[in-house]
């Protein structure tokens, strides 16, 4: 054993002695679970909760991590993605955190995971009953940029007074001829609450509608939890004559040839060369593996 490995072992033993399973103490987890239950009972409603300080900075997924810590058990299999990818530093860091503090199994395969914590994407592989998707939410209030006073937006939610949100969409069309919101595109959940789906591209919005999986949203810095229970209606805002639309690409994925996934643009040189690849690394890898097998 190298000196560094020995040191790491000593540290790990020390940590396990001082920290609870999945980092948070059980009382805190109970508090978070109560908030989650309330959120599930009132789909789309932002439940205030006493977000704890986490060992990650506010704004870096503390809300999602607390929700994951509260719902995860020793039998769970965790997948963590950022921008659709399992191997970005941020995703790796959060996955390592749960490996280290909960000692649970992790996977990159969407279909194998029981809990998927995500930042900015919903996996391309269709979700199944029994899966939980945990979204990291930077700004839970969809009207915050239009009305920064929280006391006022809470009242607007209470009264389902959402004219303001449509004013924004109207203004987009009047100015640009189309709705220009491309991500964090507002939705109405179960015909009642206006909800920010977190900064997923609007391409992913249809995956929220009637999903068999439970969708949980955690905003740590803003101290809110909300939820879309399985098989719940989720409608993206729009006008009858300017309906909600998702992005389409001319190109296919340069690696797997997919034409139905969300593509990242990659700049390949300084002469304007670029190509497109799947943002969902697991989806892309699985397609390539199947192609190789054939």
């Amino acid at each position, binding site marked *: 054993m190298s000196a560094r490995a020995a040191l790491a072992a000593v540290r790990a033993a020390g940590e396990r002695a001082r920290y609870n399973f999945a980092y948070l103490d059980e009382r805190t987890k109970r508090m978070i679970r109560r908030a989650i239950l309330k959120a599930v009972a009132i789909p789309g409603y932002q439940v205030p909760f006493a977000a704890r300080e986490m060992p990650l900075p506010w704004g870096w997924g503390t809300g999602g991590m607390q929700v994951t810590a509260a719902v995860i058990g020793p039998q769970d299999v965790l997948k963590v993605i950022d921008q659709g990818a399992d191997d970005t530093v941020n995703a790796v860091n959060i996955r390592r955190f749960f490996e280290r503090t909960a000692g649970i199994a992790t996977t990159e395969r969407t279909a194998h995971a029981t809990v998927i914590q995500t930042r900015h994407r919903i996996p391309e592989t269709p979700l199944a009953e029994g899966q939980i998707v945990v979204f990291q939410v930077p700004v839970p209030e969809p009207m915050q940029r239009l009305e920064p006073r929280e006391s006022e937006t809470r*009242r607007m939610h*209470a*009264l389902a*007074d*959402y*004219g*303001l949100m*449509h*004013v*924004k969409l*109207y*203004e987009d*069309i*009047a*100015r640009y001829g189309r709705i220009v919101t491309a991500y964090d595109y507002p939705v109405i959940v179960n015909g009642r609450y206006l909800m920010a789906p977190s900064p997923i591209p609007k391409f992913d919005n249809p995956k929220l509608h009637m999903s068999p999986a439970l969708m949980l949203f955690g905003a740590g810095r803003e101290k809110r939890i909300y939820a879309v229970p399985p098989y719940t209606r989720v409608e993206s805002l*729009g*006008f*009858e*004559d*300017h309906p909600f639309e998702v992005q389409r690409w001319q190109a296919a994925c340069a690696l797997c040839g997919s034409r139905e996934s969300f593509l990242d643009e990659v700049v390949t040189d300084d002469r304007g060369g670029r190509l497109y690849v799947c943002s969902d690394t697991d989806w892309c890898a699985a397609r390539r593996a199947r192609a190789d097998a054939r």
Partner: protein
Amino acid sequence: MSEAPILRAAGLAKRFGARLALAEVSLELWEGEVLAVVGESGSGKSTLLACLAGRMAPDAGTVEFRTRHEGWRDVHAMSEAARRLLERTDWGFVHQRPEDGLRMTVSAGANIGERLMALGARRYGWIRAQAAHWLAQVEMDAARLDESPLAFSGGMRQRLQIARNLVTRPRLVFMDEPTSGLDVSVQARLVDLLRGLVRRLSLAAIVVTHDLGVARLLAHRMMVLKDGRVVETGLTDQVLDDPHHPYTQQLVASALAP
């Protein structure tokens, strides 16, 4: 004017600390009727307007509005949701400063269309056509539909605020000194416009003003407030031509003085 009152208030009182802002004010307003509330600043007229419009709870007294479907309803006893619904359907509120009643960062069209969208309108083309129609009703060029109110003069902003209120065809409009921030020539045109709209749409309105000229041009009836109490009330021409209370006489005399 119809045969039925649309708004009635009884025994309104309001106190701010030691100061009595409103005492024993009662009134009835009829459908299609315009009532001017006049008095000097500090007379309680803005407090009265706020109490009538449900924006401030009186210490005593009641305010009732005859709704379309549920008959008389106590404005201060109804739920906030019900009152907000009234505020964006059957009522209008024109602020003295148009900036207080407009969204200054979105276009004129979005300002007018907001109430419609809040009520569930979801056809962009129709909302836009309605906005253009009401812009024309307040005698503004439809070409300015996509412009921000920031580009408008004070008089145009006030017209836009009025159009924003009228788009749901309210039955009752509250106006708080609607012309007082404007130049004299602009004032005259706006009063003219308001008079036409009120008649054409048979709106009931309560207009708070310190300007007896505005009251004479717009109002069927007027009410004179002093120190929170009603000192005189009657048909506008009667009150102005033959004021009984010394305070009204003084107001009329000072308004007539060059």
